[in-house]
């Protein structure tokens, strides 16, 4: 199946499928997040765009964001990227420590964040794997604290080194607490497979 049409736009059926994968992925992740944080996750509308449009994103971050990279391994190429607001990450660290009844020193906080990303990523990929029947392995590739738009520029440059065409499935989310307080746009989960990997993801769903 052609991923891009003759004018270079993402094929509409491919878009629909990736949109759904972004939806179910974050849907499954929301269950894990709920268990860890005791909050409800409100999932945004997935955006499916070519990777070169990432750098045109208008993310005017007024605070630092934490970005966590996980690279696909084995059968797929590309990355999963988490861009999370710093204050949300601080809360994650606190909640995870409370949940496990362990105190974390500064050096362990990075480990907690990474573990959080592992769990959310695994839940996301569990859903995608169930849909596609593909075994999806990832490996942590990096963690940065910086402005969100820098991360996305890096994503573009990084993915461009290995494969010039990749598709970004970007799903943002908000958090709702039991007291009805809602914090908007606390993070984005970005699935960034290269073109060949998109073909592998799509193929089982087009039969």
């Amino acid at each position: 199946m052609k991923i891009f049409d003759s004018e270079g736009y993402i094929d509409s059926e491919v878009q629909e499928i990736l949109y759904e994968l972004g939806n179910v992925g974050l849907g499954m992740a929301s269950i894990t997040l709920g268990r860890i944080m005791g909050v409800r996750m409100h999932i945004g509308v997935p955006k499916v765009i070519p990777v070169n449009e990432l750098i045109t994103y208008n993310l005017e971050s007024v605070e630092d964001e934490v970005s966590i990279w996980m690279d696909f391994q084995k059968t797929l190429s590309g990355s999963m990227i988490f861009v999370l607001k710093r204050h949300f990450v601080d809360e994650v660290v606190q909640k995870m420590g409370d949940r496990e009844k362990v105190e974390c020193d500064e050096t362990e906080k990075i480990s907690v964040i990474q573990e959080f990303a592992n769990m959310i990523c695994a839940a996301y990929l569990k859903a995608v794997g169930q849909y596609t029947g593909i075994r999806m392995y990832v490996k942590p590739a990096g963690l940065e604290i910086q402005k969100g738009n820098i991360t996305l520029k890096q994503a573009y440059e990084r993915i461009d080194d290995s494969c010039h065409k990749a598709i970004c499935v970007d799903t943002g989310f908000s958090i709702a607490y039991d007291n009805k307080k809602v914090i908007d746009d606390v993070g984005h989960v970005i699935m960034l497979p290269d073109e060949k990997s998109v073909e592998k993801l799509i193929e089982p769903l087009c039969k």
Partner: protein
Amino acid sequence: MDEKVLVVDDAKFARKIALKALQNGGFDNVIQATTAAEAMEMFENENPDLVLLDITLPDNSDLTLLERMMQKKPDAKIIMTSAIGQELIIDDSLHAGAKAFITKPYGEKEFLETIFDVLEGRKE
């Protein structure tokens, strides 16, 4: 408990949780590894009674390490502990010889019950 347990996880936080649960379960002979290479060396040299093995490590992100351990010692008692919840991968792990698969985040009670089941041979 006399059993020697090898915990393999690159995340310090995850190892801390496992250690705490193991201590609460009476296991005081626990060794740790943070990479596949280190884990394999400890597996060969220390001969643990039980291995708690994460799939995602800096130098191994699939079931290769599990397969190498099972090849080295076919009766090894290995429990996968991973955030990966994909059923295909869980099935693959069990077919490759893991005795059980615990998906993170896990509760201490479930964690220890699984460990005791495996050590006592109730899970094959």
